[in-house]
């Protein structure tokens, strides 16, 4: 552990960890998205499944045991797969937006219809760990983490016919080893880091891994569950966020990314879905918006920036 007064600066990257370098927004070379667009929008619905009682030693968000099973939260989450995701699909169809669905391996295996319907719409599917109830953390032994990543990748590959290019950790949780393991497993982009409005290259020993930013701010679960705001306040947040980065991008003459995370069990509920429609109507009413998948954003950025 570092001493109290010690600095932990890696000279080449100016960070205190090895996975990426510092970069100041104004110093970056400007670029435009396809069609001269300023904002690349990617919509990321989470398709999740939880263990009712996670295995011993699991770290996760939902305490539950055999004597005290958390049926309430567990069944609420499963609403997304039975009812919620279909509303989200309808709204995205209405706006002709192809999403990038982050799918738990267990959800892909239990609910292949959701993946089939996603593929029919030209959606991309990204890996999202195995269960929403089991997070990746530093406590997971290396081999177990490697195996979890492989199982997540393989489950998506089996159901979609191709290994997924992208990864989103459950709970935005990682160990100190995760990015390297992901690159080793063949992933080419990663959503976990919510630290920028533009993609950036991760420093991995093998392969190639681009960070495409997900969002903690414009995130239905953070806004509605953690911050206790309403669905219409979530919509206002999303529209305000878009307005600001759109203006930034125009002023700087460059391209930015906006992520719209949606959780099927939350914004797929009857009382909330119309606000998802409202968000997309607002954003897509502007010129210079490129609705894209995570892979499309990562590939374009890798080639042009």
């Amino acid at each position, binding site marked *: 552990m570092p001493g109290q007064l010690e600095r932990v600066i890696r000279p080449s990257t100016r960070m205190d960890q090895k996975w990426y370098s510092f970069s100041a927004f104004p110093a970056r070379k400007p670029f435009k998205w396809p069609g001269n667009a300023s904002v690349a929008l990617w919509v990321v619905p989470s398709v999740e499944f939880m263990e009712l009682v996670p295995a011993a030693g699991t770290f996760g968000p939902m305490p539950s*045991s055999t004597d005290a099973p958390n*049926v309430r939260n567990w069944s609420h989450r499963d609403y997304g797969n039975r009812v919620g995701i279909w509303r989200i699909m309808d709204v995205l169809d209405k706006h002709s937006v192809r999403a990038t669905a982050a799918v738990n391996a267990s959800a892909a295996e239990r609910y292949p219809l959701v993946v089939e319907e996603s593929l029919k719409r030209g959606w991309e599917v990204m890996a999202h760990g195995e269960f929403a109830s089991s997070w990746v953390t530093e406590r997971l032994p290396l081999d177990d983490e490697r195996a979890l990543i492989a199982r997540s990748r393989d489950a998506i590959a089996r159901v979609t016919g191709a290994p997924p290019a992208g990864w989103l950790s459950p709970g935005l949780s990682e160990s100190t080893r995760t990015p390297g393991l992901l690159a080793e497993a063949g992933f080419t982009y990663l959503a976990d880091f919510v630290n920028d409005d533009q993609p950036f290259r991760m420093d991995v020993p093998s392969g190639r891994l681009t960070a495409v930013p997900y969002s903690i701010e414009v995130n239905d679960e953070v806004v509605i569950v953690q911050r206790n705001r309403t669905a219409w306040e979530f919509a206002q947040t999303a529209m305000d966020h878009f307005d600001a980065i759109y203006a930034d991008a125009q002023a700087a003459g460059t391209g930015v990314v906006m992520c719209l995370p949606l959780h099927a069990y939350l914004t797929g509920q009857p009382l909330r879905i119309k606000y998802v429609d409202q968000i997309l109507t607002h954003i897509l009413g502007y010129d210079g918006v490129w609705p894209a998948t995570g892979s499309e954003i990562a590939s374009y950025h890798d080639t042009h920036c």
Partner: protein
Amino acid sequence: MCATKAGFAPFWRREMGPSHDKRTPMIPDRYDYLPMPTRPPLKLPNGERVALWVSPNVEFYEYLPPENKYRDPWPRTPHPDIMNYAHRDYGNRRGVWRCFDLLDKYKIRGTVSLNVAVFDHYPEIARAMVERGWDYMSHAIYNTRFNFGMTEDEERAQIQDVLETVKRHTGRIVSGWLGPALTTTLNTPDLLAEADIKYWVDYFHDDQPFPVKVRSGRLISVPYSIEINDAGVINAQGHTAETFGRMIRDQFDQLYAEGRDSARVMCIALHPFLMHAPSRQKYLDEALSYIFSHGGVWNTTAGEIADWYYEEYYDAIVAAGERGRVLDPSLQGSGGL
């Protein structure tokens, strides 16, 4: 990203240490995956779009509840917590009487989510419900006594006590079950079916009733609501009553639109100490007025919804569910819940 928060799970993180001893996870297999778009359309008795049931939670939270190692009913202070105790007591002294008046205005027969001890403490509340022809959904005995950690025999005895208590005070049989403070065991659905209780509402997985697999007899889930529920929205998440009223209307609008093609069930879950507090009731009144300004709403009870579903759809949906199973056998339920 996923997270649960006080709004949906206020006490869990604090009270529940890791007590699971199994190496493999437990995954339930209590209902088939028949997602909404794959179901046969449901039709209500008179072609309505939405079956609406209103569930006032008439509860008794004890001053000095028995200890439960899985959860502290009053985490704020060493017991008694008279602030929260009295806040809830308002419901029986004052709130429920406003509730009766408001529901009478809209000719709503409540499906009371009832801690049955309320009837033993306050038989006049039972009489008021009998006069109104309300339906009775068990919310067990006291809301401070949890089903966590109960043995099968203990839970069976609890169910029998509940049935006997309601029968004694009302002459009626309890139609359904909601766990006290939403607590259950892995045995709960089997024991409910064994006791001929028609429906269970601890699953928040659907907008329509759905069969639940049990070891004997039959059981269905009927949609109660974790979202349109003032305990979550107002007490846990701190939203205003005005917001709750708007949420009710937003929920109704969407279900009403969808109900044109296949009927939906909507529940408004209330706690008289909350939504019938003086500052709040008018927003509920406005929301109910909005709902009943529409035709095509079946103003009903959960028991009637259950009866309709068993009569018209139970067998067909069970058959469809079995045909529609696309589960990887290796991920099948490992028993229990």
